[in-house]
């Protein structure tokens, strides 16, 4: 009787799992069981080091046995996939999509901002981080987030003096990563949800000194991002479009506020359309020559590749904006020791969860405006 405990017949987490089983077993093939067990088990975090803190944060964390994965890329000898031959052999992606995108794989040299540091415990180590504590000025030493969420920010490649738009910014994890560069001239933060925007402000106040949050450097708004072009277009050097999605991990673990609950079915079905509109808005907001990173935390091909593919097509057809897909292979190659990436994705890159490196899912694709 203990085990037949009464629970709702089809809780949203269960519906999510059924949905993922149906779609991802096809999309990921033999890789799916390994991703599935990781998604259903405790995730790993990374600690984004807050350079604004007055404490010796990095040294303290390193003393606990973590390492900054961003600078720890020298070991070229063995990729983590090679150790995992059984899984590697099975790896295949059932993506059958003819890309009509101008996919010129330009392998430009990678320059990463040296001031972004994110520490993780080693592969297979399940130690947890303690909550960060405020320093003497009340600033927290680190921000706990999915370490793979740092990758879209690195991919954005912010340079000195850039103006940057973060179209869906709350609660602000990626914003904090971008701010660590201290290179941004002007940063625009937006999120349609007022309550989440308030949370974003609280996060900023806990991590960034007041002088870096002045009106000349920062603007925080709560617009509907799809209508951004009504405010301004052809403006930003860099735009990050971190869209709402089925948040796969969350949907499997939490019944509260779950996108797979019956009452949110319509909203869930509209997601790809919303994502497309947000990405198009981001593309329009960038200046010619500017770069856009699209990212999600789902494995869903419909919310990832298909959205990017359509956005590229519609930008050209409807707005005369020509885009080029910027290859992120150098980036994934660099961090293959820390994350599991799906091999040979036609468009963009994806971190897939694995028990020994339980980060992600994170999908990202980088576009450059040619016109």
């Amino acid at each position, binding site marked *: *009787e*203990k*085990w*037949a405990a009464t629970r709702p017949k089809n809780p949203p987490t269960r519906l999510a799992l059924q949905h993922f*089983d149906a779609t991802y*077993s096809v999309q990921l093939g033999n890789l*799916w*069981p*390994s991703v*599935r*067990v990781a998604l*259903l*088990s*405790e995730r790993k975090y990374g600690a984004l080091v807050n350079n604004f803190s007055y404490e010796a944060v990095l040294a303290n964390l390193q003393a606990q046995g973590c390492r900054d994965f961003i600078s720890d890329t020298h070991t070229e000898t063995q990729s983590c996939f090679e*150790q*995992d031959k*059984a*899984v590697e052999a099975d790896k295949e992606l059932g993506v059958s999509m003819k890309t009509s995108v101008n996919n010129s794989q330009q392998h430009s040299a990678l320059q990463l901002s040296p001031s972004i540091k994110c520490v993780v415990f080693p592969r*297979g180590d*399940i130690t947890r981080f303690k909550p960060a504590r405020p320093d003497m000025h009340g600033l927290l030493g680190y921000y706990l987030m999915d370490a793979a969420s740092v990758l879209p920010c690195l991919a954005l490649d912010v340079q000195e003096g850039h103006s940057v738009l973060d179209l869906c910014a709350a609660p602000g994890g990626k914003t904090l990563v971008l701010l660590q560069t201290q290179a941004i001239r002007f940063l625009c933060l937006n999120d349609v949800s007022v309550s989440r925007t308030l949370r974003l402000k609280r996060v900023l106040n806990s991590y960034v000194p007041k002088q870096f949050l002045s009106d000349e450097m920062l603007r925080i708004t709560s617009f509907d991002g799809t209508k951004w072009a009504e405010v301004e277009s052809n403006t930003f050097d860099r735009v990050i479009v971190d869209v709402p999605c089925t948040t796969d991990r969350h949907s499997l673990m939490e019944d509260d506020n779950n996108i797979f609950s019956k009452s949110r079915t319509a909203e869930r079905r509209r997601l790809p359309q919303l994502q497309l509109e947000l990405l198009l808005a981001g593309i329009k907001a960038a200046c010619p020559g500017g770069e856009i990173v699209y990212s999600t935390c789902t494995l869903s091909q419909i919310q990832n590749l298909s959205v990017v593919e359509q956005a590229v097509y519609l930008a050209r057809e409807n707005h005369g904006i020509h885009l080029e897909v910027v290859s992120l292979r150098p980036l994934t190659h660099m961090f293959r020791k820390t994350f599991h990436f799906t091999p040979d994705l036609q468009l963009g890159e994806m971190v897939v969860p*694995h*028990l*020994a490196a339980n980060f992600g899912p994170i999908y990202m694709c980088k576009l450059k405006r040619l016109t």
Partner: protein
Amino acid sequence: MQNNITLQSAKENHELRPLAQKPDSELSLRSLLDMGFTDTQAEQICESVSKFRGGGFTKHALSSLTTLFGLGLNPTSVLKVLQKCPELYTVKESQLQQRIGNLRKVGFVEGSLQRLVVYYPQILTVPVKTIKNVVLFLREKCLFTVQQVTDILRDSPAIVQEDLGQVEYKFQYVYFRMGVKQAEMVKSRLFRFKLDEVRCRHCFLERRGLYETPDKKGQTFIINPKLDSFLKVAQDTFLTEVAKASAEEYSVFQRLMAREWQEEDRHHSRIEAD
């Protein structure tokens, strides 16, 4: 006490006269040799008997040997039994006979009874009442048949020394959560395994999408692997044949589960304390 001292010195002198003085109730090297033990075996027995100091137990040693021989065990088996479970030197003859009689009643016929005693001699140190309780528990709480109960005691005799609350928890987990019926539990020798081992392999398969709790009608969307195909096998085989996963993944998983369960326990005990 006296006796023990003489035994030890006798051993040193390779001379056992003091023991031979009460040939009826005491153990002598001579009587051991007569029973068919070799010199070394006899000495081993004397030595282990002498370890039970101060209890006056040696008087039971002879009757224990006689009883074991009475079961038809040969000297080598008898020695093996006593080495595994020296406590048997100290059990009263009447108790031994009762316990053996009870095992016969529970279904152990000639041959299987002997195998049981050799495999798990501790069973003869357990009071008849305890065994009866276990049998009753398996019959009434878990609805095993008489034959299944005998099979369980044969394959997993250590169950008689376990906490029945824990055994019940394990049974319920496998019955309700995994949807496994009694016959399959017996076949897989379920009660040989710790609950956490069972749970860990099951949860691993479940989270990989390879195992599903049957619904009320016993139906599943996928075909679950049989319990004995993934419980009785070595970990390597479990990983390559059933789970199709790497050892690295399972090692992380085991550690995650251990922590999860530890935290659950702590959580429950906190609730109970409130």
